[in-house]
């Protein structure tokens, strides 16, 4: 496979700039209850229906760590090939806001639960390693609703206290495409692990994006701006694009970049200053005296490591080895755990390579068309495998298979049954085919003569006639062979 070259640069009059990006991804932990209270974490409940006295910070209420959330953070850390810290500390990040009931967010500051790790990206120009700086656990805030009433703000605390993992990357990303690949990879890993559902529409995955630019070849980083709380990959990419160009323009004009926090306006497609460094909050972090430091037994970490599912990078390797797929196919088929499971079930019962081709072609196209996921595919893995086998064995042709596939989508029926009842079986009996072809050749004597005189393009015409007469069921390979033989004679 020929590799493309990395080419995301911004050209100015004074030089060529590269974009340096680091992400702080906030991933909602998959858990039944919140980080420090027993309230439910289900999405979509009526406002303030999933709020305990702890989440709403009543006097005398105390946080108690949810063990499952801790395990989820460890699992995620292991999935990011990261160091798990046996000792970590919860700190208070102090600031006032109406949807922050305690007046502080419980987070981890100096001692996070997970240290350095890495994520591997498959880019068209080769694979690229993105360093992870750290992962820490923290509480989500509630939600302020400003548009329900002209003079009041409403607050919904359902989200208040839900566990988040903040995953901080090193400034290793260099383009919006890499950001796209990075977020998707993180999402895939966490979905494999079952630690975050990665649902960006529901806000389970959001990111703060740090962007700076520098001339190609410069060793030092430029001044960065942080774009807060972007909740879709598309917006992240747009924001980076805008922000990087804004910064280059400033530099080209000989101006300086202010280190600041910016917001991305999705309507105007631009970033806007939110607060400068001078106005930055002093969060007055200090260890939360209501919580003891989190001390993890090595055994717990080891046990969790042993029970981890196979992760996408490993699975990809295995797919290449075991199923003879190429890197691209393997990549696509491991991109979701459910897809890989489906593929493996199909591959076990049918031709591995053909199964991959058909899955990535017709099956994905259909799912995409209908807005479905693999897990609610109208075609079961078993039926799909049978379809693949019918093609492989020559029972039906690829063209007929597409028809069978359509019927399977509509009816959910078994392909054998469809082929049987609709008489779609391929005509593979050489004698019958020969008879049919002879009839065609007799009827088109003039064309046979032309063919023999050198007009070989007419071969396609004869094939077409065979297919027409057989209702498309003639085995194409056999038809070719017989036709060639008879036309020679």
């Amino acid at each position, binding site marked *: 496979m020929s590799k493309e070259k990395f080419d995301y640069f911004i050209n100015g009059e004074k030089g060529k700039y590269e974009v340096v990006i680091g992400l702080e991804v906030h991933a909602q932990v998959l858990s039944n209850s919140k980080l420090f209270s027993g309230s439910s974490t289900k999405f979509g409940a009526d406002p303030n229906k999933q709020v305990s*006295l702890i989440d*709403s*910070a*009543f*006097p*005398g*209420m*105390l*946080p*108690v*760590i949810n063990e499952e959330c801790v395990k989820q953070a460890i699992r995620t850390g292991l999935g990011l090939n990261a160091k798990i810290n046996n000792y970590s500390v919860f700190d*208070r990040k*102090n600031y*006032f*806001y*109406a949807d922050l*009931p*305690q*007046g*502080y967010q419980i987070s981890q500051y100096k001692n996070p639960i997970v240290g350095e790790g890495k994520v591997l990206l498959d880019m068209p120009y080769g694979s690229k390693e993105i360093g992870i700086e750290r992962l820490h656990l923290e509480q989500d805030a509630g939600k302020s609703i400003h548009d329900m009433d002209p003079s009041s*703000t409403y*607050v919904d605390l359902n989200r208040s206290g839900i566990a988040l993992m903040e995953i901080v990357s090193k400034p290793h990303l260099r383009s919006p495409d890499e950001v796209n690949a990075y977020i998707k990879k993180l999402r895939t890993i966490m979905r494999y692990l079952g630690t975050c559902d990665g649902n960006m529409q529901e806000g389970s995955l959001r990111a703060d994006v740090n962007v700076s630019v520098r001339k190609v070849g410069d060793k030092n980083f430029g001044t960065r701006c942080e774009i807060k709380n972007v909740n879709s990959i598309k917006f992240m990419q747009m924001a980076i694009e805008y922000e990087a160009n804004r910064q280059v323009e400033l530099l080209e004009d000989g101006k300086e970049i202010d280190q600041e926090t910016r917001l991305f306006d999705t309507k105007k497609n631009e970033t806007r200053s939110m607060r400068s460094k001078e106005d930055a909050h*002093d969060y*007055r*972090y*200090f260890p*939360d*005296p*209501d*919580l*003891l430091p989190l001390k993890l037994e090595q055994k717990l970490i080891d046990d969790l490591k042993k029970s981890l599912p196979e992760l996408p990078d490993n699975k990809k390797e295995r797919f290449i080895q075991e199923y003879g797929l190429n890197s691209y196919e393997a990549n696509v088929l491991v991109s979701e755990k459910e897809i890989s499971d489906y593929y493996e079930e199909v591959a076990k019962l049918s031709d591995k390579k053909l199964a991959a081709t058909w899955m990535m072609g017709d099956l994905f196209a259909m799912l995409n068309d209908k807005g479905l996921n693999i897990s609610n595919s109208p075609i079961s893995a078993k039926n799909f495998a049978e379809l693949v086998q019918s093609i492989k064995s020559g029972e039906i042709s690829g063209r007929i298979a597409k028809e069978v596939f359509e019927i399977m989508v509509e009816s959910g029926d078994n392909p054998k049954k469809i082929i049987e009842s609709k008489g779609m079986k391929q005509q593979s009996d050489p004698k019958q085919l020969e008879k049919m072809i002879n009839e065609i050749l007799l009827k088109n004597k003039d064309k046979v003569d032309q063919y023999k005189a050198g007009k070989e393009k007419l071969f396609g015409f004869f094939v077409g006639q065979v297919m027409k007469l057989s209702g498309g069921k003639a085995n194409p390979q056999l038809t070719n062979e017989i036709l060639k033989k008879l036309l020679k004679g």
Partner: protein
Amino acid sequence: MSNITNQSLSEILESIKSKKISSLELTQAYIKNIENAKKLNAFVTTTFDQALEYAKKFDNKPNNEQLLSGIPLAVKDLFCTENVKTTAGSNILNNFIPSYESTVTKNLWNNGAFLLGKLNCDEFAMGSSNETSFFGNVINPIGDHLVPGGSSGGSSSALAADLTPATIGTDTGGSIRQPASFTGTVGLKPTYGLCSRWGIVAFASSLDQAGPMTKTVNDCSIMLEAMSGFDDKDSTSINKKKETYSKNLKDNIKGLKIGIPKEYRVDNMPKEIDELWEKGKKILKDLGAQLIDISLPHTKYALPTYYIVAPAEASSNLARYDGVRYGYRSQKGKDLIEMYENTRSEGFGDEVKRRILIGTYVLSSGYYDAYYLKAQKVRQLIKKDFDDSFTKVDAILTPSTPSSAFKIGEKTNDPVSMYLNDIFTVPVNLAGLPALSLPAGLDKQGYPLGLQLIGKALDEQKILNIGYAFEKNCGYKNEIKKWWS
């Protein structure tokens, strides 16, 4: 019967068990006392109707198997009580009625006691004289011009004035022991983590600890037994087997080693405090204990350390009082920030604001290392001093306070002199240790003075035993004329 309320909790319990008096009669006697003692301003809220109802219920079906069978109790207004207003002595919680019961009070009720009312205290337990309460200062029954100590001043006053047979307070830097000392009563700050903090309005989380305030050491052991215990709702609660302090109370202290720390002899300490300390040493020595001179070299840093750590935690703990969800909300202000500013300006008193400011300052970027971080390091050294000493001694004897009860208003405009009142009590909180304040004598004005016994972590039984023996041989008795009724 008329003087039942003069008696100790254990004597009253006997009377209830032997049916010499009914719970209803007892409750009525206290209600009468309380109604006659409004001048003391010890109560913020009374719950007479529900107390009488509970007493009747108890009398109809007495269960005498409990530690506190049929006993009405008033508690510090820092404990959240279900459906009963809980103010923490602050305007900002002036209208706050919790829907939940603190673990400690629930433990008391589960042991047969019931609520008589909520006792005044310094605002958010910040004070040493009960003068910072939004509900006005409390008066010491010892004299109408004296403070009852703080922050559990309503508790000490009510106890000494026979308005409750026993009570509970909280102690962050001395808030149980100092008011006990000022009123001639017994006060215990347990080991940090022995009593759950769940449902107690927080002041400084790493220091706060609830404890009993009683007339006798035996009462103290009964109350501690009833209120303590592991609570999985408090992450700092100690998971250990429950002890039966009262059953195990012994007055034989022969051979125990009592440490006398030289650093507790501070400059300008009144002579009578020194004499009291000498008296205490002699009593223990005569009982067969061995006195050992020890050194707690970092003691002098305890007060400054405390006044960094406690306000730092408080500044964060009190951030939740913002007028958004409960409590007082100012009607002034045109946006969220102004609402916060007005609510907190109007809701908090001066001392609370002072400590929020100090706390915010010491946690600020650029100052954190010099103040908060350094204070945490010193705190470890203070703790280590105690750890080292406890390899040599069983308990440590010190004065409880550097003076007897002072006059109302005397220190109001001098916070540092007010803070100095905690000089003997704060090291114990910083180290998380248990300490018992015992009434030990009177100064020349006739005001009570206390001595403090400090124990190893979770060694409550030992200091109670020493206190029990001390009490029997000290001969101290509170003689309070009921001048207010």
